[in-house]
Every structure is written in structure tokens, then in C-alpha cells.
């Protein structure tokens, strides 16, 4: 797929182009013919329920898995994991906090830096900067296994930023965090996107996370792309306003582009009704016919 049309990358130069990507495990198709683009500097969310194919997609984009079909391009160049220069562009935060528990926070960063060919005072400086950025300076000499869940998560992110990647992949960055830590993590991710001048590609199954963070959202379900766009565009696709019509057994939804039309319909109904703005959960429900649990 060409990226000649800059609009396909949200009016930005194209950073990642994915075309016809497919991967199966035995008879199970995990990612089925998906194509999309990510623009430079975007905060891009890949939203879908558990098992939708989000992690497989990240693993395909970062070379941890090989695709059965399709291609990935970075800055227009075909991605081949054997070409090491492309890997320098990428930072990855996996779903699990894959830290060396026995090593200190600083040692975890040291080994990462060495794996990326960094050394000497430049490496020490980056370790200091990344620990400071993640508010972990005081935990520098604490074994990673003794850090709290939120701190471990931040350390994994700091590690991924150490070699100054242009693109940061985060697989479910806030899974397992309490609501307070989750909101702090959102602020941290925004800072990364803005201050580190880094394209952020994150997967999530939390709708509010995609809604709060992302410039653009791509919805995936059962290995296939459902739809994509900015949160506003996605909501506009189904209607910006929704009526929750409470029946005896369930709640029915009706979508409206404009609020007056929704109000008019509300007045016609003699059952219990609520009017509210559309959320991405509604978009998912409308397009897939199921809730994202």
C-alpha cells in the first residue's frame, strides 16, 4: 500500500505502513489481512477486546513474529528484522514487565543500552535522563523485582526509550494498574509523545484509554479491522448522540447525528430514556454487535 496520500496518515508524514498483514497459529487466524498507516508523531491506539489480535500485530510490526502474508514499511522502507538499522528506530514495551528482577533499575537500563550498542558516558547520561523522566532516580539501585507494579511499568517504558527510538510500541501499557496509576500513566504517555518527539503506538482494551489518549484509533475484533479514525470521526460515523432506551430486559440504543433529532425522538418515547454523547464503546457495539468485555 502506498502512502502517497498524506491524509491516510492523519495529515502527517507516514511513519508506519501496514498492508495485508496476516498471521495464523495452526488453524487459528490471529491477524487477518489488516492494512493501516501511522503518521509521524501520532499517538495511535489499537483498540479491541482480549484475543482480538492486538499483541500479534505488535509482534509482527516489531519482528518478533513473521507474517504469513503482507508487509510492513517504516518510512517507506520494507521492514526486514534482519536489517538492524530499522530495529534502532523501535522501542517496545511488552504486555508483561519483562525486567530482570535480580538486576537494579539502572542495570536493567544498562543492559538494554549495551544491546543497542550504547556505552560509556553517553549511556550513563541516558540512564540518568530516562530514570529521571520516569521519576525513578531514587530507585536507581533498587532491584527491579522490588519495585511496585506502577514503577516496574515505568521502568519498562524508560528502558524502551533509552536508545531514543522514533516509534514506541506499547502493548496494553496500563493493564494491571489501579485507576489512579492508570491516569498517571496516561499523563506519562502524553509527555513521551510530546517531549520525546516520539510516535506512540499503543494497544488497549480500555475504551476510556483510547478515548483519552489517542489522536487516532483503530478498532480490531476477531483478527479483522473494524474501523478507524479520530475518536470524533468514529463517533460521527455512528452518530454523535445516543439514546439509551430502557426496556424490560435490556437497553436499546438509537444514534443521532444532531442533538435536536435525538431530543425529538426522546419526546416520542413513553419509556425510560437517557440521552448522552456517543462513546467509543457505543461505536464498538454498533459496528460489531457486542460489548467490549
Amino acid at each position, binding site marked *: 500500500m502506498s502512502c502517497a496520500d498524506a491524509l491516510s496518515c492523519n495529515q502527517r508524514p507516514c511513519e508506519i505502513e501496514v498492508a495485508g498483514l496476516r498471521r495464523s497459529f495452526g488453524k487459528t487466524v490471529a491477524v487477518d489481512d489488516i492494512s493501516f498507516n501511522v503518521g509521524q508523531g501520532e499517538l495511535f491506539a489499537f483498540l479491541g477486546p482480549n484475543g482480538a489480535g492486538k499483541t500479534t500485530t505488535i509482534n509482527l510490526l516489531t519482528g518478533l513474529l513473521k507474517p504469513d502474508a503482507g508487509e510492513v514499511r517504516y518510512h517507506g522502507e520494507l521492514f526486514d528484522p534482519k536489517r538492524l538499522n530499522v530495529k534502532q528506530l523501535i522501542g517496545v514495551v511488552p504486555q*508483561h514487565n519483562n525486567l530482570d528482577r*535480580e538486576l537494579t533499575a539502572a542495570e536493567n537500563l544498562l543492559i538494554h543500552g549495551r*544491546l*543497542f*550498542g550504547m556505552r560509556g558516558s553517553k549511556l550513563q547520561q541516558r540512564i540518568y535522563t530516562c530514570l529521571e523522566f520516569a521519576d525513578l532516580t531514587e530507585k536507581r539501585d533498587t532491584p527491579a523485582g522490588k519495585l511496585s507494579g506502577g514503577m516496574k511499568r515505568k521502568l519498562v517504558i524508560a528502558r524502551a526509550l533509552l536508545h531514543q527510538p522514533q516509534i514506541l510500541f506499547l502493548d496494553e501499557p496500563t493493564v494491571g494498574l489501579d485507576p489512579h496509576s492508570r491516569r498517571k500513566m496516561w499523563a506519562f504517555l502524553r509527555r513521551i509523545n510530546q517531549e520525546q518527539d516520539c510516535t506512540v503506538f499503543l494497544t488497549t482494551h480500555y475504551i476510556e484509554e483510547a478515548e483519552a489518549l489517542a489522536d487516532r484509533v483503530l478498532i480490531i475484533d476477531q483478527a479483522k479491522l473494524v474501523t478507524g479514525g479520530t475518536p470524533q470521526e468514529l463517533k460521527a460515523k455512528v452518530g454523535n448522540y445516543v439514546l439509551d432506551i430502557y426496556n424490560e430486559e435490556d437497553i436499546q440504543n438509537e444514534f443521532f447525528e444532531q442533538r435536536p433529532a435525538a431530543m425529538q425522538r426522546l419526546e416520542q418515547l413513553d419509556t425510560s430514556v437517557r440521552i448522552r454523547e456517543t462513546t467509543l464503546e457505543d461505536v464498538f457495539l454498533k459496528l460489531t454487535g457486542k460489548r467490549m468485555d
Partner: protein
Amino acid sequence: MLYGARAIYLREMLILRRKMIKTLMASAVSPALFLLAFGYGVGRGAQVGGVDYLAFLLPGLLTMSSMNQAYGIATEINISRFYFKVFEEFLLAPIKRWEIILGETCYGITKGFIPVLIIGLYSLLTGVTLKFGPLFLLALLLHLAIFALLGFIAAMIVKSHADQATINAFLITPMMFLSGTFFPVDQMPLAIRAVASIFPLTYSTQLIRATLTPGAELNAWLYLVLVAILAVLFFLAKRIVAKVEI
């Protein structure tokens, strides 16, 4: 140059440093028990191939224990791959896949030296003279590299911890007992000798024992045999690691 291999080696050494006491103790206990059971229990006063049984046994224990340590990287890689997922960091780094083999093999070799120090100490305590010369060092390096590579390959081909235990049960344990560690292979029945001939430990035990025992006859061809095994294993490891996915 080789920054990936050096980074992996550094990582393993930093972790080893933190568990050094446990590793030393584990390396000391098992050969001590074998020494007591076989050396002083079964083989007390016996002669094997013209030498005292203890002088026969100690080089065998050294080879077996160092093999266990070098091959033991399999379990560590396995845990880092399937449980802690740290292995992903190596796969994501801009390094050649064979550098992972190199880093881990060097770590296996380093670990394999720990029992050598312990058996050296046991030789002093038991009054058995062992000749730690350059020929021994060369044989030991080849032996450790072979078993570290075998450990690496095992860790790459298994799909779970349970698979790892199966390989240990069907490959490593028989190798320990049938490769001339405790008894000379040529005193075994023909069928056992045939099985032993396919185990690399048979050749490294023979060579290491010859280099350690003063006055023993050394078959230089065994070095070539070990080099050939090493080359084949490295080639295999390179092919396997190139295909590894998470």
C-alpha cells in the same frame, strides 16, 4: 564490535554475581556426594586402568559437574524465555541472532569453570594429583562450549519447562552415567558402548581425564572430534535461533 554478545554476557554475569553463593554450593554438593558414594563407598581400594579409583573418578566428576553447569544455561534461558520473557529483549535488539548464541555460550563456559575450582579443591583434600595444564584447559574449553551450545539448542527447541525436563531425563542423565564418568566405557556391554559412542561427553571425559592424569596417554584426535562436534552444534544453533519466534 560484538556488542550484542558482550551485552548478553554482561547481563548473565551480573545475575550470576548475585547468586554466586548458591551456585558454588550447588556445584560443591553433588560431586562431594558422588565422591563419597562411589569413591569411598563402592570403589575404595579399587584400581581402574592402572590408577587408583579416586584418581579415575575425580576427572570424571569434574567433567560431569562442569557439563551440568554449562548445560544448565538451558533452564535459565528457558525461564527467561517462557516465564520472565526477558529473552524478547534479545530478539528485539539490533544484533545478529548468532550473537545471542555467542553471549550465552560464553556464559555457559564461565559457569562451567566453577566446578573445576571445586574439584581442584577436592583433589587437594583427597590427595589425588591432577595436572591442570594448557592441554587440559583447551579440552575443558571445547567440552564446556559443546555443552553450553547443547543447552542453548535445547532451550530454543522446547516449547515449555516440561519439555526441558524431558530432554534432561532422556539425554543428560543417561549421558552422565554412560559416558565413562564413573566406570570405564570399555568395561560396559557392547550395546552400552554403542550408545556411549554417540554422546559427546564420552569423548570429552576421555580427553579431560587423559590431560588431568599424570603419565596418561593422550589421544590428540579427540581434540578434533570435539572441534567437529562443536562446529556441528554451532551450525545447528545458528539455524534454530534464526527461526525462533517468541
